[in-house]
């Protein structure tokens, strides 16, 4: 199965990268952009067929390794097998 973990700066935590991207987008003419938050996304393929178990597993991976929970939040979504990425 494939599971997606998104990791992003917690609310209130400074996001210098998001800030720089937002101002670059606005310089490029995307004036409607108000705010950008920059995070990471991980697509993890795991052996297993129980979505509940896979999700729980992925949460543990996020806590242990993928997210720095001091400053980052995360969420987990089971995508099913073979979900396509371009």
């Amino acid at each position, binding site marked *: 199965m494939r599971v997606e973990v998104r990791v992003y*700066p917690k609310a*209130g*935590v*400074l996001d*210098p990268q998001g800030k720089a991207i937002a101002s670059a987008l606005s310089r490029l003419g995307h004036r409607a952009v108000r705010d950008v938050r920059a995070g990471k996304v991980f697509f993890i393929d795991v052996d297993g067929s129980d979505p509940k178990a896979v999700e729980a597993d992925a949460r543990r991976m996020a806590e242990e390794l993928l997210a*720095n929970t*001091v*400053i980052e939040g995360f969420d987990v979504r089971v995508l099913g097998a073979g979900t396509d990425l371009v």
Partner: protein
Amino acid sequence: MPVITEEQIQEHNLSEDEYARILEILGREPNLVELGIFSAMWSEHCSYKSSRVHLKKFPTTGPRVLQGPGENAGVVDIGDGLAVAFKMESHNHPSFIEPYQGAATGVGGILRDIFTMGARPMASLNSLRFGRIDAPRMKHLVDGVVRGIAGYGNCIGIPTLGGETTFHRGYDENILVNVMNLGIVRSDRIFLGRAEGVGNPIVYVGSKTGRDGIHGATMASEEFAADEANQKRPTVQVGDPFTEKLLMEACLELFETDAVVGIQDMGAAGLTSSSFEMAGRAGSGVEIDLSKVPVRETGMTPYEIMLSESQERMLLVARRDRLEQALAIFHKWELDAVEIGRVTDSGRVVLFFEGRIVADLPAAPLADRAPMYDRPRAAAPAPETPRWREEDEPSDYGDVLRRLLASPNVAEKSWIWRQYDHMVQTNTVERPGGDAAVLRVKGTKKGIAMKSDVNPFFCQADPYRGGAIAVAEAARSVACVGARPLAITDCLNFGNPEKPEVMAQFEAAVRGISDACRALDVPVVSGNVSFYNETAGRAIPPTPTVGMVGLLDDVSRHVRLPFRRAGDRIALLGTTHDELGASEFLRTVRGRDEGPCPEVDLAAERRLVDLLVALAAKGLLASAHDVSDGGLAVALAECAMQGGVGAEIALDSEIRPSSFLFGESTGRALVSFAPENEAAIGAAAESGGVPCGIVGTVGGGRLKMAVRGRTATVVVDEDLASLTKLWRGAFVHAIESADVL
């Protein structure tokens, strides 16, 4: 107006006496904003209330000192119309909570201290103390701290040229991250943190203010209760090195004009300390409209704005008639720059928010009348007596050497410094790995040497001697590259000062540093104190880090650590005593964490420094290395391994071979030189009053040592290539087995 409750006073870490003093200064009750300001200004971190009495003992003046302690950084003249500004800072508590951001923002903070003085930051050092590598979270901490220092320093383009890294269980729950930076400034263009000139605008520059780090200064002034690290997490600040780069370039461009009257970075306690200190130093007053402060989050209160520790911010006072010019430079660099207030002569700091006065406090008393404590000190424990017995003598000295070279404290640290850009700015003459870093000063023939040093195990055994030895070892390291020691900065890391044993350690270490500075003629020009490095009642070993700066008149004469040529002669300068206390050997190989601390003879240290500098200036040395952790055997091995050439020494010894090979007697250096220089060096040593024993010769592919004792001869005979492999690989091996990203 709300009445301040007892609870609020406690939450703000103010004692009853301190609160009474506030009432006396104000003649009324403070409001909450004012209470927050007092709390921050009177925190240990900002007020130095437990340390001030003792720090007064430091020698702080000298013919070259242009600025001593009290400003953002110390400044020392190096001739040619130039001066160096330098300082060291700790970011211990934040780094334990979030190692990457804690270390990164530590670098950011020290850089601002340097460039506010008008200096361009040229080089950083980092002095790191970690717990046992297998302690919980430790690999994560090591990795995060190193990445954080790299992430910030590399991005902003300031090389990290060296440091120290020690592992010991005493730091399992309280790591230390001390960072030093040095910048170069024209000696007639030094800027100070003063709010002068009534009517001059006060300008806020840099990142917007968020809620980060509120109570950071008070956090640095408390010990961790077990697992409290977790609860304190929301105060984590995130560094933005790109914004700091813009801030640095903009400030340096601005300093070329005459628009700036005074400038100060917003470090600990942010806008509070910067505004009060600038007004206090100048004896002026300021009015600030907090509604004008650029904020990152909605609904921020005056209390939050005053206490936020958001990074990459500066406060400056501009000349009224040059305000437009100043703002234009900041806007060119795409930075927020806003006039938020003006200088007054009221002697008060008056804060407005949305048209109301939210605080009105006298400026000077917050600093001048800050509490100062001569805290009780325990009597110094009796010095330990050596507990070494003949049956403890090793049977295989080569094996001991191998184990020492593989110990994380001695092993090569290139895993760390390869992650640091140590070449940007193209001034790096001596890269990390030598005794002291050396950078050239463009446009002159001069060179600057830098080294941070302290042996916490010596300090644990005897804080007075440990403090003195830190200065002596740093001076020796700097002299080994051929530089004359100029001045020091320091970062004094200790446990809870309210404990008499800790206070006794602190007082003794300060005395030791002071005495050594006087003996070596190096003033203290800046520094930092970090108390409360303590968890669940367990304090760190006393760790007064010393950052030494030295000057080479001719940088092309600098001396390197590695052996250079087969056939060169090797000499040991200084005296080796029968001392094994507090040595790496005793601790790592014998598992005994015990003293006593080695002796220190400051007059002899001075003579050694003078000799090394003179020999280097005459170009007589092929290599030089100070003898410290791991003793003579390790020092010899390091010269050989780095030079890629073996060596053979043989000497007679009255003392036990283990002391000779692995003891850490102070005041020694190992030098090599072409055989034709032997007579000149011997004569210089003799007239300089430094014992000099020719002990061997460079050459071959093995490291051979023979110590002829009274009864038997002890021999070490090891293959250099395999020692090198061990020494280079040990640290990587220990750390990379970690699951870190």
